[in-house]
């Protein structure tokens, strides 16, 4: 029997509202707004109030998928990452680093965006890295 609230930042728009994820025994059970937060001041919009709703949706991807014979089939992480590494290395050798493009994401964390552009620039060797800031 464990109940606590995790203070986090809303995953929807760019306002930056804070919300509490209510956690009971390692399961999300709801959202509570954060009083005294400088941005959201104890309020949320309907999206924030439902921010936990999609996390455990049945459609969540649970394993890597690899296309085989035209179909996406489940694969291990090792298999999927090895395939990517091999393919990207081959394409880079064949057509140069600028034949590869990387999309960073406005939905991922700063740290993840930092890493993916570092990956694109240092490991692949291209500045073909962008995200949907314009969309």
């Amino acid at each position, binding site marked *: *029997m464990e*109940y*606590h609230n995790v*203070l986090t930042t809303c995953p929807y728009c760019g306002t930056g509202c804070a919300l509490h994820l*209510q956690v*009971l025994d390692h399961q999300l059970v709801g959202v509570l707004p*954060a*009083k*005294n937060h400088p941005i959201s001041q104890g309020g949320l919009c309907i999206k924030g109030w439902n921010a936990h709703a999609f996390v455990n949706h049945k459609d969540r991807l649970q394993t890597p998928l690899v296309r085989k014979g035209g179909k996406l089939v489940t694969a291990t992480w090792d298999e999927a990452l090895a395939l990517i590494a091999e393919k990207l290395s081959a394409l880079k050798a064949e057509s140069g680093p600028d034949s590869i493009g990387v999309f960073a994401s406005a939905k991922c964390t700063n740290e993840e965006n930092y890493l993916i552009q570092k990956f694109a620039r240092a490991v692949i060797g291209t500045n073909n890295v962008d995200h949907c800031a314009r969309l």
Partner: protein
Amino acid sequence: MSERLTALRETIRQILPQVDGVIGLKTGPAGIVAPYLFKPGHPEMLDSLALWPKEPVPDTLKIIQKAYPNARLAIVCRGCEERGVVEMFKHAQVSLENLTLIGLQCVQEEALFCRCAKPYTVHARVTVGSPIAGVPDPLTEAFAAKSQAEKLAFWKEQFQHCIKCYGCRNICPQCFCNVCALEDEKWVETGRLPLPNPSLYHIIRAMHMTAKCVACRECEETCPAGIPLAIHFRLVARDVKEMFHYETGAVIEQKPPQLLTLEEGDYERSGLP
């Protein structure tokens, strides 16, 4: 305030070994407060025990009791939260069995903030702080004094700001129906802003809070548009008291008046022909 905090911490420390957990408030990152279940064996967590701002803890109790119906729990509750627990008990949402109420009496400043008529607990046997008298609710009084046209204009102005976040309903410990009328397109227009006039959303919610609202004012606090929602509820609470002699949270054994039968004298007081 800090004196009360020390006293509360000591009280919980004493109760903790006798129960499976104590529901209270804890200060988290950046000083932001949230409900928390303090557990025996971890008294050090009480270092971050908090008093204010208050949170809808009766709902926390419901969440935990639903998963652990037999747990021995204690809950730190203010006057409004105690009333909340009592009303939820009457509607079979929480159990009072195996539950210790730790009453936390509000101070003047808090009562004024909530415009609270009853900033004290009445059922809790363990209490912290000394009870103070209720304070008037100038907002509700000012509203009640308005003319019909002014009332209409007042809510037209207020409700056009509603962003339909459902926060007032979501945060309300007394809103626990599995199927909510406010989500039914028969009654409330879905997918639309601003809400059209008259705002069925808000009138229906006020109707459903009849004899349920415990005046905790959580709805007003979470409303991003700052709508003084409690005005409706408090005026209706006054009517319910006059017509049906019912006050939320006051008497544990008294059934809420929405139940079918009219009691002696109810009808005469209802103002109907």
